[in-house]
């Protein structure tokens, strides 16, 4: 009797623990579905939208969402986990909208169950910051010189090629140290896209992407990592976001654009670069544009949503709220750009965004009024 009791007790314990394990295992298989469903449900109930993606526009988006919350009461929970993470979240339908510094690649678009649209939300620039204590003038760089430096073919600051575009500037006989991002980032993507466009060698040897195989240089984590290298070691050049460079009073170079002018990065020159014809799908790179006053290493940042909003038990109300939010972001929300060193969208970009939002449907019917 007693031994039987013991066996049953232990058996019970094993069954309980085993049960926990088993549910744990079976749960993981359907986990993503359940998660997304619950996320969608809770979001619908408490007037909250979920977004995730690029970290580059995060300061601006945070400001926009907090202002929007004050006037409408809608809460937007934006997680700045990186463009890749935002795209993944949208693909898995765990977020209401994604945000990315790079348009979807063909593979990424294929992985999604339905077509997603790109709405340009803000623009920024990548600047080349350097530490040359004895050089008082602003350094000028041409595309070829820039590519040469980052390919490792130009190794000294007093190289004849650099001197040729900086007439009258006394350049030091100093080795060039290069700093780049080591974490995958939209900033790297804009910079390498630019180099790929302007230099054949770069295109064949390295290419473009949010993380690439850098031929030379030190890798730093985040803007602050790269900026740390630049500040610490004289002779270092690296690329960082315009907003970060302005806030930290760092020196940055003028870059020669397609029209041949040397342009200093600023909100005005980024807006100028963005003032081009934007294709109807909103997917355009602002690097090396034709604008004569435009800074050539600029980029758009997009909000990504599904064109057909009826999925995973989403309500029509929610779809309408989201479209309204994005409309507000590209119109009234733009007023917060300048203070945070982002470039406001050009009128053309806003028009394309409006047209794209009109194509968003819920169960086949247009959402926007």
């Amino acid at each position, binding site marked *: 009797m007693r031994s039987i009791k013991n066996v049953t007790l232990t058996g019970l314990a094993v069954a309980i623990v085993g049960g926990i394990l088993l549910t744990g295992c079976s749960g993981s298989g359907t986990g993503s579905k359940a998660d997304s469903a619950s996320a969608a449900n809770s979001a619908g109930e408490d007037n909250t939208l979920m977004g995730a993606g690029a970290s580059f526009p995060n300061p601006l988006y945070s400001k926009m969402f907090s202002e929007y919350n004050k006037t409408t009461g809608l809460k937007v929970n934006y997680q700045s986990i990186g463009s890749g993470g935002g795209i993944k979240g949208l693909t898995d339908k765990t977020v209401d909208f994604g945000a990315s510094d790079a348009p979807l690649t063909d593979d990424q678009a294929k992985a999604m169950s339905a077509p997603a649209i790109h709405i340009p939300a803000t623009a920024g620039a990548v600047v080349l910051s350097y530490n040359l204590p004895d050089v008082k003038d602003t350094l000028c760089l041409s595309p070829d010189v820039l590519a040469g430096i980052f390919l490792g073919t130009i190794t000294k600051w007093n190289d004849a090629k650099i001197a040729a575009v900086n007439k009258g500037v006394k350049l030091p006989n100093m080795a060039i140290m290069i700093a780049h991002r080591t974490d995958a980032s939209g900033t790297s993507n804009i910079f390498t896209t630019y180099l790929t466009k302007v230099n054949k060698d770069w295109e064949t040897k390295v290419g473009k992407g949010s993380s*690439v195989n850098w031929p030379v240089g030190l*890798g730093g984590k985040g803007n602050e990592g790269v900026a740390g290298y630049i500040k610490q070691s004289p002779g270092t050049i690296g690329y960082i976001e315009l907003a970060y460079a302005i806030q930290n009073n760092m020196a940055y170079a003028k870059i020669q654009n397609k029209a041949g002018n040397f342009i200093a990065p600023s909100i005005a020159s980024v807006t100028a670069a963005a003032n081009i014809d934007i294709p109807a799908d909103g997917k355009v790179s602002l690097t090396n544009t034709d604008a004569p006053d435009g800074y050539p290493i600029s980029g758009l940042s997009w909000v990504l949503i599904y064109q057909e909003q009826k999925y995973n038990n989403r309500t029509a109300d929610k779809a309408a709220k989201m479209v309204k939010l994005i409309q507000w972001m590209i119109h009234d929300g733009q007023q917060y750009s300048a203070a945070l060193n982002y470039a406001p969208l050009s009128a053309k970009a806003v028009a394309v965004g409006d047209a794209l939002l009109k194509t968003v449907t819920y169960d086949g019917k247009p959402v926007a009024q």
Partner: protein
Amino acid sequence: METLVDNDLIARPDESLGRAFSAPKPKDAAKASKRIKRSHRQIRTETFFRRSLIIVGLLMVALVFAIMLTLIVESIPSIKALGAGYLWGKTWDPVKDVYGALPFLMGTLLTSFLALLISVPFSFAVAIVLGEYYPQGWLSNLLKNMVELIAAVPSVIYGFWGLAVLVPIVRTFETSLGVPPMGYGIFSSSLILAIMIIPYAASLGRSMIQMVPANLKEAAYSLGATRWEVIRSVILPYTKSGLFAGVLLSLGRALGETMAVTMVIGNTTLMPNGIFSTGNTMASVIANELGEADKVVYNSALVELGLVLFLVTVVINMIGKKVIGKFTNE
């Protein structure tokens, strides 16, 4: 009075023994069965407790296997696409989808073993001072607490300190040596790691040295041995396996350290060509790149990097266990 009570107590066992042989009264029977019941409940609790412990213990084993299984399953796309060449490939190019882990494997092993080399003299010295020379007193307490505090400081603080203080010093040192003065790289990372791992070998070594039987030491002293001779020929041989276990613990910590290393190593994907060159470690690559690894093979290659790190740790641990076993048998 007391003697009376004593007599009574002595008398009782005999009495009960006598009763046991005669037919027991119902009251006593109830008492006996109650005692039996309680002891059975106790046995049951014991068994239940023991079995729960075993189950919880087995859960840990299951967890390790589950982690390994996850790593293997998630690396399948990369293993299929890249094969064994992954292990000795020198190029890590997410754009062209070519991944080779060798530079990072070298980076991890170089930084960890160099750190071990630097830290071992210090951790053994601390262990001997605290275990043998000054086992008590405020100074040894202070030293002991400080060494333990080294292990408690978050690694990002070491990284920051390395960036702000160590890197400029190493840069000056490199300038005087005539190597490219970057300051960042394998050497700086090893120095940071060495400091971080000192407490592990030191603490274990100290408790091992304190456990050396006094009679062994006294015997050596009585034969005229000096303190140094006692340490060399009694204490160190006696605590050999324990000291080695501490070193192994330090190595495990060094292999997996991520944050402090990534801040000072320079993060280049090129093959390191010396201790002053920049490089990268497996843990640091995973931390840096997993967030935006959007391609299937890229993501999988990073997980495979984790698998390689896992296996390296397992192999080093197994070798270490063998060595400890050999020391103990001797």
